[in-house]
């Protein structure tokens, strides 16, 4: 017995030695590795600064005819980056009334001017949330030793929201020009002098465009298998082609598709997906369908400092497809009024207003609309839009009045209902839901209303879906299930009774 005890004791002792030694080794190791860590040498060169797109206003250099030393592209790019970063840190500083980052982009005496303004603003509890949307710099001078540049930044479009005690006082859009002197210090091009030489309030002249389609009789389109995720690996041109043929055969003449903002790469557009979008337009053209392209799907930031990125996103997409025959209308954003509550109506509206101007500046030849989620919001920004569109999921009986009321408010612009429909879901989560016959009845009735008032329409949607991403209606099963059954064709490919009323004309294709 005592022998066993002794062995246990021995074992315990041995184990404790092992543990102590392990601990000692660990401590030494930790101390050693701590003493061996330090500043990474690469940090000296600023090479580790990751290039994240955070500020991308439109910048157009005037032809280079500067005095002094001829400039090379690399230096010009370095100057451009640091100069724009200078603006960016300034915007952040005025937004937060802090001085982070100012030191890097303004020389010692220049930064004092910013600090003074920040001091006044924080004392008065004023914040300035601003951004610049366009720059047109002219390089005036580059010194022989490559340490000093002078540029005139012409017609800088500045947008500012001024808050006092967290209440929005005003929105300002200005067009200003600046003379800027920059010095190369510590590897940064820093602002030494900045003198505003011109400034005037800026308003965009908006020309309205007629829609270049006849009457929109269309449908919102997603392939059955990949709703809200048709681009990328899931992209299947064969399915889309046959769907388009089907849509065309029913007598519809247009479709509405969505370009998700993040999925398309935000400011840095995924070229592969862009190519797929072009393919989709090609297929639509083949099927003789016009396309309403809805930009900024699932975008929800709207913050003023994010505007330049959205601008860059829109620019790339618009310029890739603006000359496409199948393109009919730009829908800036799907149901942005749903973000009014969380992001603030002023902010969302300001972004929309800017984006309308921007889209029109990039493509003056196509009509622009916003797909409001209800008729009440449809008057917002109506003077800027070429086409007023809203979504109608409310009571059918009220449609007649709603439309008439809206028509009195919007006299001179076409009005299109770009989403409407009825879910034919009735089941566990909604036992008193509508049947497929109810759905057919709904579409039959609504088509009569459309004919009566000559309303252009786009229905929701061609197919019933199997899976709805949670971003669309959330995770709640009664919402998910309802959303699955808005189609004219059910999950097995069988046409529902409503298919007969997909448009005013009777579908020419026979039911199979």
């Amino acid at each position, binding site marked *: 017995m005592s022998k066993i005890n002794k062995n246990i004791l021995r074992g315990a002792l041995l184990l404790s030695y092992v543990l102590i030694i392990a601990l000692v080794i660990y401590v030494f190791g930790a101390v050693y590795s701590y003493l061996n860590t330090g500043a990474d040498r690469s940090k000296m060169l600023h090479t580790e600064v990751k290039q994240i797109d955070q500020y991308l206003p439109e910048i157009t250099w005037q032809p280079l005819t500067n*005095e*002094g*030393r001829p400039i090379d592209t690399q230096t010009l790019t370095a100057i451009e980056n640091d100069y724009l970063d200078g603006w960016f840190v*300034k915007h952040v500083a*005025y937004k937060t009334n802090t001085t982070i980052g100012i030191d890097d982009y303004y020389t010692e*005496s220049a930064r*004092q*001017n*910013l600090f*003074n*303004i*920040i001091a*006044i*603003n924080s004392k*008065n509890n*004023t914040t*300035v949330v*601003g951004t610049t949307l366009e720059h047109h710099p002219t390089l*005036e*001078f580059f*010194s*022989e*030793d*490559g*340490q*000093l540049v*002078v540029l*005139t930044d012409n017609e800088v479009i500045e947008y*500012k929201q*001024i808050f*006092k005690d967290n209440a929005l*006082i*005003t929105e*300002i859009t*200005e067009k*200003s020009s*600046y*003379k800027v*002197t920059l*010095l190369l210090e510590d590897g940064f091009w820093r602002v*030494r*002098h*900045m*003198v*505003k*030489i*011109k*400034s*005037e*309030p800026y308003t965009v002249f908006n020309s309205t465009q007629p829609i270049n389609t006849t009457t929109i009789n269309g449908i919102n389109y997603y392939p059955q298998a990949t709703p809200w995720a048709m681009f990328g690996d899931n992209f299947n041109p064969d399915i889309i082609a046959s769907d388009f043929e089907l849509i065309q055969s029913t007598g519809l003449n247009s479709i509405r598709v969505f370009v998700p903002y993040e999925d398309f790469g935000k400011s840095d557009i995924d070229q592969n997906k862009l190519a797929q979008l072009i393919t989709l337009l090609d297929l639509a053209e083949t099927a003789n369908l016009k396309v309403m392209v809805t930009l900024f799907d699932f975008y929800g930031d709207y913050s003023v400092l994010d505007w330049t990125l959205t601008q860059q996103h829109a620019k790339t997409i618009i310029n890739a497809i603006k000359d496409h025959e199948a393109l009919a209308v730009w829908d800036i954003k799907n149901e942005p009024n749903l973000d009014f509550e969380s992001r603030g109506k002023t902010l969302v509206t300001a972004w929309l207003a800017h984006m309308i101007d921007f889209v029109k500046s990039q493509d003056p030849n196509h009509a622009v609309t916003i797909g409001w989620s209800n008729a009440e919001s449809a008057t917002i920004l109506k003077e800027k839009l070429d086409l007023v569109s809203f979504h109608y999921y409310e009571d059918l009986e009220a449609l007649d009045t709603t439309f008439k009321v809206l028509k009195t408010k919007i006299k001179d612009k076409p009005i299109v209902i770009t989403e409407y429909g009825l879910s034919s879901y009735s089941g566990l989560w909604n036992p008193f839901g509508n049947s497929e016959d109810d759905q057919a009845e709904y579409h039959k009735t609504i088509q009569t209303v459309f004919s009566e008032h000559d309303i252009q329409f786009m229905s929701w949607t061609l197919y019933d879906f199997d899976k709805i991403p949670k971003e669309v209606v959330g995770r709640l099963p009664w919402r998910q299930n309802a959303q699955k059954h808005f189609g004219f064709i059910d999950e097995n490919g069988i046409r529902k009774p409503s298919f007969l009323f997909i448009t005013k004309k009777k579908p020419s294709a026979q039911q199979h």
Partner: protein
Amino acid sequence: MTFKYLYISFISLLLLTSTVVVNTLESDATYTLLTTKREFIAGESIALRFAFTGDSEVLLYASNSYGSILLEPVVNDKELKFMLPEVMSNKSGVFNWQLQTTSHPISGHITIQPKSKIEAIESYLGPPSIEAGGTDYTMLVVIPTDDLDNPLADSTSVTIKHQFLTNTYVSDVMTKNGFAYKNISSETKKGRMLISSSCLDLNSKEFDVNVMPAIPTDFKIDSERIHDYADGNQITTFKTSVIKDRYDNIVSDGTFVTFFITNTAGYKSKTSGTTINGMASANMLHPDFEDQWSVKAYVEGMANSDTIVLNYKQAISDFEVAFSEDNRTLTLGPIQSFMSQRVPDGLTIKLSIYKDGMLVHQPIKDTFNGMAEFYLDKDRYPKGVYDVELKTAGIVKSYKTINL
């Protein structure tokens, strides 16, 4: 209790009517700018005055070159006065404002000119050294600023002065875009140039620029040696002539010169030196056998010398070899040089040992006191017949079928 209700209802009625009154006032509010001056000088006290009827609770959005603020008015009878803080009134440039009225905001701008009194001259000079000859130049950039750190108005005259050798030059330049600059070219002589500037009676400090000689032109070389024997011990020194640029300036000290030596067999060696006062020198050990060297020097990529030829005479005519009894110890020497003196220590001797026509080993030894000794170890060279060959100072001696 009834009084309390009466009281409350009275107060609320009062509040209601006053709100109504304010509202009506607001909608009727008018504001007119009284300040007529549109141009100010930085540092002046600037106020924007408005005549108004109605609401005095308005803010003024104010924006200058660096940022924007909100201003609150000082109300004086029927006048609103917005005092610009120094932050705004001290900076030159366009200052724009907008009166935040509820109805129709009015806006405008004033121009703030920099002072015409100078406080500082910021000078940027570069590059700090230039090449003589008149094509290269340095650039002086001058930013004159007032005491509020505003660049002075354009078309301010700046005098740029520079001195070189015996001459002093003065020229006037007008500022444009807030700065003035001048390119100052070198002359044909090297030297140091002193540069300064002045503006509105303020003088800058002195800057200097080194005018360096231009690139070297072709030069000559020469050699120096104490004798012409190939003794493998003495040193030959190569020297360049004074290397100059095309304007007769002696090239900068430290100009790197490489001497390339090609011997009879075509092998190349090089040695190098840097110039002091235009001359560079470099050394090379004499060969230890009769040879002819062709030497040419280069300042790489810029200039080169002529070629000189040097002959080295054979210093050692012959040497003696003695084998020990067992043939395992080979003793050379004493090896004698050109005056029959023993050769200096360190002459290289190469022994090649062959067995059955195959090279087995090639030990190398240096002479000491004119002698050298090789020992062929038993363990390394077992019994047998070997051929040996000894080579030094270009002389080869062979011994066939040596029994070990």
